[in-house]
C-alpha cells in the first residue's frame, strides 16, 4: 500500500514538474491550424515583437535565432538584454534570416509575423518545420499571441500574470481618472522626425487612449504619417510624446520658434519615451509599463510612481535590476 501511494505521489510530482509532452494543435493568429511537438526546445523568431515575449515568459534560453525590435549591438539596450540572456550575440539576427540559416538552427518551431511572413511560413512548412503566425499589434492581438505562447511553452500562469498586469493598469488609470474627475488632454505622438506622427491605426494611439488622453492624429490611417506643421498647430496638442528611437528630443522642439507656438511645447510638456530592452511604445511586454509612464505624464494627479512600478516589473518578469542611469531617465 505504501509503495502504491509512493508511486502515485511520484507520478503526480513528475507530471506537475514536467513540460507538456506530446502533440499540441494550435490555431495561430492567421487562422491556420498548426501541429507542434512538445516540449519545444529550439525556437526561431522572425517577429521581433514575439521575441520580446519569450524574454518576459522566461523562456529565452529556448530561443536559438531571433530578430529584435530596433536592437543594435553595443548599445545600452543590448547591454541590458545581455544581462538577462548571455547568449544574445549567438542568437541575434540583424535582419530576417535566410531560409537556410533558419533550417541550419534546426528549430522545433518558428514564430513569424502574420502580416509579412506568410511566404516564409509556406517555405518552412515544406521542410516540416511548424510555423506560428502571430499578430501582436494591438491589445487584443497581444492577448491572443501571449495565450498561444503560454500554451506552447507551458507558461500559462506567467502569461496570465503578464496580461493581468496590463488589465489592472488599464482599470487603475480609468478608475483614478473617474474618481478625480480628470479631463483627457489632447496628445500627439511623434516618431523619428518631428513631423512624422503615429496614425490612428497604430498601437501608440491605443496607448494614448488607454492612458487617458485624446490622440489628435487618430484620423490618420496606416503607419507613421508625415504631416504639415500647420496641421500640428491646428491640433494644438497639450502633450507631445516622442518615440524612444530616432534622433528627435524635446530640446529640438523647445528650441524651434515655430514649434513654440504649440501649446505642449510652450508649457514644456514634451517627453521622450524611455527604452530598456525594447522601445516602450511598440507592442512588447514593456509597453505595459509604457502605458503607466504615459498616464503618469498625462496626469501627475494620479500619483503613479513609475520608478517603483518599473523596478518591480523588471524584477518580476525578467529578474533584472534597473540601473541608476535608466531609473533617472524613467523618472524624467
Amino acid at each position: 500500500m505504501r509503495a502504491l501511494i509512493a508511486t502515485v505521489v511520484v507520478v503526480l510530482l513528475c507530471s506537475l514538474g514536467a513540460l507538456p509532452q506530446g502533440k499540441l494543435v494550435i490555431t495561430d493568429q492567421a487562422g491556420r491550424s498548426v501541429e507542434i511537438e512538445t516540449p519545444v526546445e529550439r525556437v526561431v523568431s522572425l517577429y521581433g515583437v514575439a521575441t520580446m515575449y519569450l524574454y518576459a515568459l522566461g523562456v529565452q534560453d529556448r530561443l536559438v535565432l531571433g530578430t529584435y525590435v530596433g536592437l543594435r549591438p553595443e548599445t545600452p539596450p543590448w547591454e541590458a538584454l545581455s544581462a538577462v540572456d548571455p547568449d544574445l550575440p549567438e542568437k541575434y539576427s540583424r535582419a530576417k534570416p535566410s531560409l537556410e540559416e533558419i533550417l541550419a538552427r534546426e528549430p522545433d518551431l518558428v514564430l513569424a509575423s502574420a502580416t509579412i511572413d506568410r511566404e516564409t511560413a509556406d517555405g518552412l512548412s515544406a521542410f516540416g518545420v511548424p510555423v506560428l503566425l502571430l499578430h501582436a499589434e494591438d491589445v487584443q492581438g497581444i492577448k491572443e499571441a501571449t495565450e498561444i505562447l503560454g500554451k506552447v511553452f507551458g507558461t500559462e500562469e506567467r502569461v496570465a500574470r503578464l496580461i493581468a498586469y496590463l488589465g489592472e493598469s488599464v482599470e487603475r488609470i480609468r478608475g483614478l481618472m473617474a474618481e478625480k474627475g480628470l479631463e483627457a488632454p489632447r496628445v500627439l505622438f511623434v516618431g523619428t522626425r518631428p513631423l512624422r506622427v503615429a496614425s490612428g491605426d497604430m498601437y501608440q494611439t491605443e496607448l494614448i487612449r488607454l492612458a487617458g488622453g485624446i490622440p489628435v492624429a487618430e484620423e490618420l490611417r496606416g503607419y507613421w504619417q508625415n504631416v504639415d506643421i500647420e496641421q500640428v498647430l491646428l491640433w494644438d496638442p497639450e502633450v507631445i510624446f516622442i518615440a524612444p528611437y530616432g534622433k528627435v528630443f524635446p530640446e529640438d522642439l523647445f528650441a524651434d520658434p515655430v514649434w513654440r507656438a504649440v501649446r505642449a511645447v510652450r508649457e514644456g510638456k514634451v517627453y521622450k519615451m524611455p527604452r530598456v530592452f525594447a522601445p516602450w511604445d511598440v507592442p512588447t511586454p514593456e509597453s505595459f509599463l509604457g502605458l503607466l509612464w504615459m498616464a503618469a505624464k498625462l496626469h501627475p494627479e494620479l500619483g503613479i510612481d513609475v520608478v517603483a512600478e518599473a523596478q518591480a516589473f523588471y524584477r518580476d518578469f525578467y529578474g533584472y535590476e534597473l540601473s541608476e542611469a535608466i531609473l533617472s531617465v524613467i523618472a524624467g
Partner: protein
Amino acid sequence: MRRGRIWPVLFLFPVGAVFVYLLVGRYPLSPGEVFGALFRPEDVAPTVLRLVWSVRLPRALVAALVGANLALAGAAFQGVFRNPLVDSRILGVSAGAAFGAALAILMGVPWAYVDGISFLFGLVAVGMVIFIARRFGGTVIVLVITGVLVGSLFSALIGVTKYLADPLDVLPAITYWLLGSIPEIPGWAPVGKLSVVAALAGGALILSRWRLNVLSLEGREAAALGLDVARWRTGVILAGTLLVASAVSQAGMIGWIGLLIPHAARALLGPDHARVLPAAAAMGAGFLLVIDILARSLMESVIPLGILTGIVGVPAFLLLFMKHLARGGGWG
C-alpha cells in the same frame, strides 16, 4: 590566353559555379550529401534532398539564366544602339516590368501571377517606345530618348505604388523586390519560363549575329550592305526585350550585368557579335551565380543582389574602362 583556348574556360565557368552554388549555403551540407542527393537520392535524408532539389538547384539555374539573359540583351542592345553606355534597362523595359510587379504586389495578386504581370508590363513599355519612336522617324537617337522618357514614366509610377503601399507589409515587399533577388524557393516553373525565353530570344540573337555586326555600323553603311535596317533593329530590340522582361519578372531589378558583362566579353574577344553574344551569356550566368553565392553566404540574411552587383560592378567597370583607355582605345 589565346582565343581558341578561352571557350572551354568560358563555358566551364558557369557550370563550375553551379556546382559551387550547390555546395555553399548557410545550412551545413557536406559535399557528400549534395552529390548523394544529386546521384543517389534514395540514400539521403529528406531535408537534404529537398534543400538540394527544391532550393539550391532551381535557384542556381534561375540565377544562371537571369544572368545570361541580362548579359545577352545588354550585348545586343549595345550593338544595335552603337553606344557603349547602353544596358539592358534602355527602352524602359526594366522599369516597365518592375512597375508591373510593384502594381501586382500592391493589388495583392497571388505571388504565382506577379511574374506574368511584370513580364507583360515590360513588353508594354517597349511597345510604347517603339510605337512613339516610329512616329518620329524611328532613328536610334529617337528610340533612345523615347526609351529614357518611357522608363522615367514607369519609374514615377513605381513611386506612386510605393507611396500608396501599406508601409507595414506591402512596401517592404515592393522595396525588397525592386532591389533584386532570386526567390528563396523558386520551384521549377521560373527555370522553365526563363529557359524558354533564353532558347527562343537568345537563340534568335545568336543566329542573327552577322546582321548585328552590320547593324552596329552606321545606318547608311548598313543599308548600303542591303539590310532592312529598321526591321532588323526592331527584331533585335524585341528579342532583347523578351530576355530582359523575363529576367526582371523573376528576379527584380539587377543592374550592371547588362552593362558590364558585354564589355568584359568584348574586352576578351573583340567586337564580333558571333563571339560576344555566346561569351556574354556564359559570363553573365557565371557572374550572377558568384554574386548570389556571396549574397547567401556572407550574412545570416540574404543581401539584395542589386546592391552586390553595384558594389562589385562599379569597380570592375572602372577597371575595364581604365585599361581600355590606357591601351588608347575608343569604343567601336
